[in-house]
């Protein structure tokens, strides 16, 4: 299976394992194929193994088991400086004793490129990130965003085909971060490079990537394009980790025609789409996105199941209303409604009825 999968892949992990202490595995049986030109994000909580994967790819960590292939060639035993992979570090790692131009010139110098070409390439790279006027500055004289651009330019100046980024935007403020997200994706697509991007910020992952690999506990939980990841999470962890999510615990009563009938713990019965439940009697966790919950149950079909709910809290957030409900014995059920002209504002304490389409409600593995 792995042969066919990684045959045309630019970067491939084949059954890769990594242990630091010989007792626990930080990365457990990783298989991943990245086609050329893809922007892939590794997303996960800290300690999930995503940075270790990146470091193995860069060559700073060695895989305990398995193969890492770059362009069809195993790079397990190739030292980092011969891999030709560009890398942007979390704190930029710009050399403080060199000017911006010297920083950019460094990878070209060690590749023994002649001076005139070097200067031309450095100039082009600086223009690419709109930092042409800053060539003679020192990194300490630049703002965080400017340093970020220089780090990016330095990783790109020797024209690598693969660029790794380790939480490169973590140190920037929100506005700058959003701006840089846009610039990085633009640049990547423009240059046609393959990017492996590590972050723990799910918004960043969703907005920037072609595909997102969600890491947890040393494994990839799901790898999919952002929309699929959000709308069709394959398990409870992904559903919880990506976006806001409501969960209800219950037991599968029957599965018929692609619809599972789930009896909630308080006795209520709802329809759900079976994702990883297969037989009646199985425990399950129901996952519903807050914006897919319908307050106006009349809009739902005839035979849709509805639940009773009590409004606990109403939060005005500008573009949306966030309402906390007490449903099926839980008081952390969130719904989001758009702040449109005809939307009614729910009063705390009032009794309402809520419902959803069965395909928006996913029966996942029990937590």
């Amino acid at each position, binding site marked *: 299976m792995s042969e066919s999968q990684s045959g045309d892949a630019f970067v491939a992990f084949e059954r890769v394992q990594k242990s630091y202490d010989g007792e626990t595995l930080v990365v457990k049986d990783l298989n991943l194929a990245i086609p050329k030109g893809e922007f892939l994000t590794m997303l996960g909580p800290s300690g999930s193994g995503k940075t270790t994967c990146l470091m193995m790819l860069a060559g700073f960590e060695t895989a305990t088991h398995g193969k890492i292939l770059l362009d069809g060639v195993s790079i397990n035993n190739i030292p*980092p400086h011969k*891999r030709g992979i560009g*890398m942007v570090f979390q704190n930029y790692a710009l050399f403080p004793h060199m000017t911006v131009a010297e920083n950019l010139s460094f*990878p070209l110098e060690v590749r023994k490129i002649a001076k005139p070409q070097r200067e031309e390439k450095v100039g082009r790279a600086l223009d690419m990130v709109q930092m042409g006027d800053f060539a003679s500055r020192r990194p300490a004289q630049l703002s965080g965003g400017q340093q970020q651009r220089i780090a990016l330019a*330095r990783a790109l100046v020797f024209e690598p085909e693969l660029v790794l980024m380790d939480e490169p935007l973590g140190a920037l403020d929100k506005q700058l971060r959003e701006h840089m997200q846009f610039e990085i994706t633009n640049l990547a697509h423009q240059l046609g490079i393959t990017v492996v991007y590590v972050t723990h910020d799910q918004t960043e992952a969703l907005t920037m990537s072609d595909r997102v690999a969600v890491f947890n506990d040393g494994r990839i939980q799901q790898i999919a394009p952002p929309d699929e990841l959000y709308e069709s999470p394959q398990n409870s962890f992904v559903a919880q980790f990506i976006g806001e999510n409501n969960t209800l615990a219950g037991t599968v009563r029957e599965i018929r025609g692609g619809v599972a009938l789930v009896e909630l713990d308080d006795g209520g019965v709802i329809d759900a789409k079976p994702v990883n439940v297969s037989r009646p009697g199985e425990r399950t966790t129901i996952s519903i996105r807050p914006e897919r919950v319908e307050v106006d149950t009349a809009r739902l079909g005839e035979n849709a199941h509805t639940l009773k709910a009590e409004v606990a809290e109403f939060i005005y957030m500008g573009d949306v209303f966030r309402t906390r409900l007490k449903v099926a014995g839980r008081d952390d059920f969130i719904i989001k409604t758009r702040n449109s002209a005809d939307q009614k504002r729910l009063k705390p304490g009032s009794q309402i009825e809520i419902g959803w389409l069965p395909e928006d409600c996913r029966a996942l593995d029990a937590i």
Partner: protein
Amino acid sequence: MSDMTTTSQPVAPKPGAAPQVADPMLAADGTPLKRSLARALRAQKLRALMLIAPLLIFVLVTFIAPILDMLFRSVENQVVPNTLPQTVVAVEGWSPDAGETPGEPVFEALYHDLFLAAEAKRHTRLGSRLNYEHAGLSSVFRSSGRKVDDVGEVQLDALDALDKSWKDSGFWYALMSGGEGAAGDTAPLKAARGRLERLTGENFGGDAGFVPGQEIARILPRTVAEYSTFALFTAIDDGKEVARTKPWEAVKVALIQEIKRGADLAGYDGPGAAELRAARDMAAGQPDIDFKAAFADIDEAWDEIATWRTISAYGGHFTSGYFLNAADMQNGVDGIEARPENQRIYVMLFQRTLFMSLVICGACILLGYPVAFLLANLPMRTANLLMILVLLPFWTSLLVRTSAWKVMLQQQGVINDVLVWLGLVGDTGRLVMINNQFGTIVAMTHILLPFMILPMYSVMSTIPQTYVRAARSLGATNWTAFWRVYFPQSVPGIGAGSILVFILAIGYYITPELVGGTTGTFISNRIAYHISSSLNWGLAAALGSILLTAVLILYWAYDRIVGIDNVKLG
């Protein structure tokens, strides 16, 4: 209370108040903002000062003041003008170019100065001082102090033979004080007190039981001056009654000289007037006292121009002599000149000190850098263990460590024994590794190594690993990443360690003293020698001043080249 707030405490400007653009910014109460701020900060500064005051005073009293005093000794030369006050004034008009020793008045002044110095037993101190500049003068002064009583013996005997009252202490007392109820003149007494205090450095305040007579002080000023000095010394230092003590020969010599030169006795009718006139007539028949010949008789050095050149050259209150000496130079016939070849030692010692300190510093860098690098890049637990090993020498006495090197390096020591056992050197050809420069360099490198490692380590531990990783990901080999990226960032640590080690090394004393032998000693050992053995503190201070200046200049140069801001100790 409200009054207080408006006058003494600046209040923040009211939001509505229009800022005055042209003038300096004003606080709400109208005072300039800067002054207002300074006033507000004054209390803080005062409090800070109070906090450091105990330490500051302690350091000033026990450290700064002694050092300044010591440094001052390198130019101070009080002992010559204080011991020979009249001589150095009299010799001013003399020049060694004249080709002969100074004239009678200078020798007469020398007689009086030396007589008093010998009485107060201060002449040997002067002798040892001048001996630094002119070898042999120490014994000249010692013997001259012993024999100075004999000068003018013939004339003194004649005076005593003339009338027995000249041998009577009561008579002298009456003569000099002008008798009961005579008008007194305290000026000679005051001058004598100053002279004695400068000479001995002790306090001569208090009642001498003697006041010179006004009349006699006018007629015989030098005699009265000498007698006053005698009286004060007798009363205060010896604790005897002046009227019952026979005056010094110097007083009688002064009297003979003065009456012989025609002191105006015509109008004098005080006590002893008749004896004075008789003495005058007697003195007229006596030959003059030949001071020059008398001194030449005591020691022929007094008949040499070189002796007088030294006294004349070092007669001032301040001298460059010690510094010249410290630079292997001296005040010669034609001004400043190099010392004879066999007396040159200090320039060579300074050069050796600098050179060896540089070698030690370099050795510390070479040995310390890898260790600091390892310390900074190892996991915490291992690094701590290694750090203890680095610090271990700190907890061991310096003497123990130095002695250990003696055991290791001596010819019958551990290293030589092992080499002989291995057959690498023959039993007769054992290596000489101690009591020379090699021994000093080895032992001091070992002792100063922690001072190099610690600043290096503290700088290196602040260099994130990502820099080297970034360099390697950019295509640099291990070596290039180290040399182009890591090393430049660790240079401030090398700088800090080097300054520390170099400055410590340049003034090191104990280790070179113990393992340096003759070829491995530093300038500090010579300074210690002058402080504790030869007691030439002036020269020691001059050497110390030069050392201090050298360190300050190096420090300044380092600041200019590297920048002291780049030095990090942690």
